[in-house]
């Protein structure tokens, strides 16, 4: 689904939106051998169609193209021994601040590259650029997530070096990015204490598909009704293998644990 560069046929599908009336499609007449319309059977079985029509078995995953490109990205990362980390969260959890701190504190330890995903603006890329890391911004416009195709193109612009660390800051959204494999080795979900401690239960897919959960803004714990143990327990209910690190990007508390985790990968 390329909504960034328009380099293949996907973009034209978007351009159909809003151009048609709201009447809805006319369903063609349709004959069933068994005379009802509950559609619980397979199309290939006991089903009559128009003369000249035939059934084609497709059995194709809808995300097949994305997953294929994600595997391609993954192969590229493996060949160049690049650690690619997909950072996901709702907006405002502090992803960009965490990245700024990380890139500043670990400067010189490795080559760092960043892909910034946002619907609009290059504000985050500008902040990351100021740390000295190489960064490219993807604006998804109406899109609510990054996909493997966008990341593939962004990488072409970055000219990644061997043994580098690539952070991919996804669009702030705990729902949509969960379905899209970018080819990353690790998915890190970030939540903050200004959100609800029930977030892992409300958005289970993202916590289920992540390997690390960072709970940010712990310096604000005295001022908010966030139960950090409950949040961790909720996250573990969704994904018992999930590692949890509590940090404050403001005071620096807990960041050494995050850096150790990075070094271990």
């Amino acid at each position, binding site marked *: *689904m390329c909504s960034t560069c328009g380099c293949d046929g996907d973009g034209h599908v978007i351009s159909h939106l809003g*151009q048609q009336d709201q009447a809805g499609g006319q369903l063609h007449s349709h004959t069933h051998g068994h005379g009802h319309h509950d559609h619980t059977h397979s*199309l290939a079985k006991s089903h009559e169609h128009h003369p000249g029509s035939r059934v*084609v078995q497709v059995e*194709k995953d809808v*995300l097949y193209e994305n997953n294929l490109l994600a595997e391609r990205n993954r192969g590229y990362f493996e060949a160049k021994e690049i650690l690619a980390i997909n950072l996901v969260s709702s907006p405002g959890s502090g992803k960009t601040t965490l990245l700024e701190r990380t890139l500043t504190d670990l400067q010189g330890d490795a080559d760092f590259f960043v892909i910034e995903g946002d619907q609009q603006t290059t504000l985050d890329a500008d902040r990351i650029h100021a740390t000295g890391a190489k960064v490219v911004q993807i604006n998804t416009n109406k*899109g609510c997530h990054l996909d493997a195709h966008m990341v593939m193109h962004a990488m072409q612009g970055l000219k990644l070096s061997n043994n580098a660390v690539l952070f991919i800051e996804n669009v702030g959204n705990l729902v949509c990015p969960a379905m899209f494999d970018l080819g990353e080795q690790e998915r890190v979900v970030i939540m903050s204490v200004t959100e609800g401690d029930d977030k892992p239960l409300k958005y289970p897919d993202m916590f289920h598909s992540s390997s690390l959960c960072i709970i940010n803004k712990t310096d604000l714990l005295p001022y908010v009704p966030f139960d950090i143990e409950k949040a961790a327990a909720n996250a573990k209910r*969704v994904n018992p293998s999930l590692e949890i690190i509590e940090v404050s990007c403001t005071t620096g508390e807990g960041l050494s644990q995050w850096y150790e985790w990075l070094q271990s990968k």
Partner: protein
Amino acid sequence: MHELSIVMGIVDIAEEHARREGAQSVEEIELEIGCLTTVEMEAFESAWKQAVKTTILEHSVKTIHRTPGRAGCLECAAEFPLENLYDACPDCQGHFLQIYQGKELRVRSLVIH
């Protein structure tokens, strides 16, 4: 609204297969959307209405199979229906689960003309 991306993916698959088979139209399309996917069906239907316009699926009859979630407990080996990813094993209350079914998101078949 990733449902729009998903519908666009379905349109791509249908167009590719229809073209390969030399078809003029797709009369029916059969989809499988597991109950444990993050597809919200109302959002999917509204994305579908908009995104299939002027594509080969514009007048297609759509059949959706909702495969129920099913998981196995990695601790006590029980197998059970899974409605939510955070549900515990009904036998041992464990959360180490393997999902067997319910994550499907695929185009099963087309009726082309």
